[in-house]
């Protein structure tokens, strides 16, 4: 299991039976694969779906039945369609248990930056700013360090923010951090890594849970 798959599998352990969940494109979306058998979640998509799954390849494709990445999908039995206004009413209004997003940077205040690299192309924030405001729990997922080895969990994000003080947790391949009013707390640590190693690879301050657990996946 590579880093991304490991992170996704850990995120999947957060899914409780009956949760409504919005998963960002890429890494967050992988988490569905690791859903605990017998656990039922309702996937929500920004373009107005509650309760869907991947397209069934045995069925014809309906171009009017796509998710927020324009992938063909299957609406579950008992699923529902809403318009864009209502879809974001669900998102912003606290009706989602969990929103999982990819991140470029996060910080010890629980802020997240995931839409724009300074000097990069202004491609827009899509629904990301909405998704980080309102879900009961907002989890940022990312590989712990950038490709050049630099820290991505910072004292303060340097990229333009997606949301200020919005995160509940941060999951990387090295550990699971909870964002608390007192700052970041390392709750789980990956096998074969030490707290000192994580500190060396993290700019943000964090405390370590006195009952620190090993980060495991199903």
């Amino acid at each position, binding site marked *: 299991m590579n880093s991304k798959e490991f992170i996704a599998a850990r995120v999947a352990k957060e899914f409780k039976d009956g949760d409504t969940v919005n998963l960002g494109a890429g890494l967050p979306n992988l988490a569905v694969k690791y859903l605990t058998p017998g656990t039922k979640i309702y996937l929500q998509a920004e373009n107005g779906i509650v309760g869907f799954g991947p397209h069934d390849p045995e069925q014809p494709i309906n171009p009017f039945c796509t998710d927020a990445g324009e992938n063909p999908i299957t609406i579950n039995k*008992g699923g529902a369609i809403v318009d864009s206004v209502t879809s974001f009413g669900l998102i912003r209004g606290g009706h989602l248990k969990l929103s999982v997003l990819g991140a470029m940077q996060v910080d010890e205040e629980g802020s997240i930056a995931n839409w724009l690299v300074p000097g990069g192309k202004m491609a827009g924030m899509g629904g990301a700013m909405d998704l980080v405001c309102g879900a009961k729990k907002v989890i940022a997922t990312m590989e712990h360090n950038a490709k050049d080895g630099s820290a991505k969990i910072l004292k303060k994000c340097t990229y333009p923010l997606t949301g200020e003080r919005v995160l509940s947790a941060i999951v990387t391949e090295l550990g699971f951090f909870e964002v608390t009013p007192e700052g970041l707390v390392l709750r789980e640590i990956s096998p074969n890594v030490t707290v000192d190693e994580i500190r060396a690879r993290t700019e943000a301050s964090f405390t370590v849970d006195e009952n620190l657990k090993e980060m495991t996946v199903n």
Partner: protein
Amino acid sequence: MVQILNLEEAVRHIKDGDIVLGGGFYANGTPERIIDEMIKQGQKDLTIVNNDGNTTEKGMGRLVAAGLVKKCIFSWCGRMTCLPQMVDEGKIELELCPQGSLAERIRAGGFGLGGILTPVGLGTMVEAKWGERTHLNGQDWLYQSPIRGNVAIIEADRADEEGNLVFNLTQRNFNQIMCYAADVVLVQVNNPIEPAGSIHPQEVHVPGILVDVMVQA
């Protein structure tokens, strides 16, 4: 996920002091069986939010007549003949809100918005007593705060096992939006609850993830 409970268990979700959003426009769309049971269980000091309260014999007004209510938020209450005197005597508090603003405030509460900016009520008693004039984008607007409930009590025509709801014509009124704006949504379903998949996804009026408890009426 939605639970299907009997009436007594369902209504136990309501507590003394709760803010209760009640669907319905007069008798149409008001969950009378839930109100029956509320009167039986006697949760008190309630704040009720409803279009009109209807009468003291039918509708949310019965809770007022039963002495269970400390505050009403209504757009109109002309059929509740007992209310003005109770208000005058300080036995109950009454907040009046223009009907469309009431609906919109409940929506703001359910949609995670900070309130509404409307032309309705500017220069009236609503501004003086229950709103705040603000100037934004070159114009005056009346700001009114969002409304949320601890509980919403709702009547629906059809439901499936996932909690998806469909209303019968004008039964929809305030019932649809109130499902977004309460911590616990209790629904009286008038027809037998159907298996998941029996309501077409684009004909659902309220997605089931908003519904907590259903009672088969």
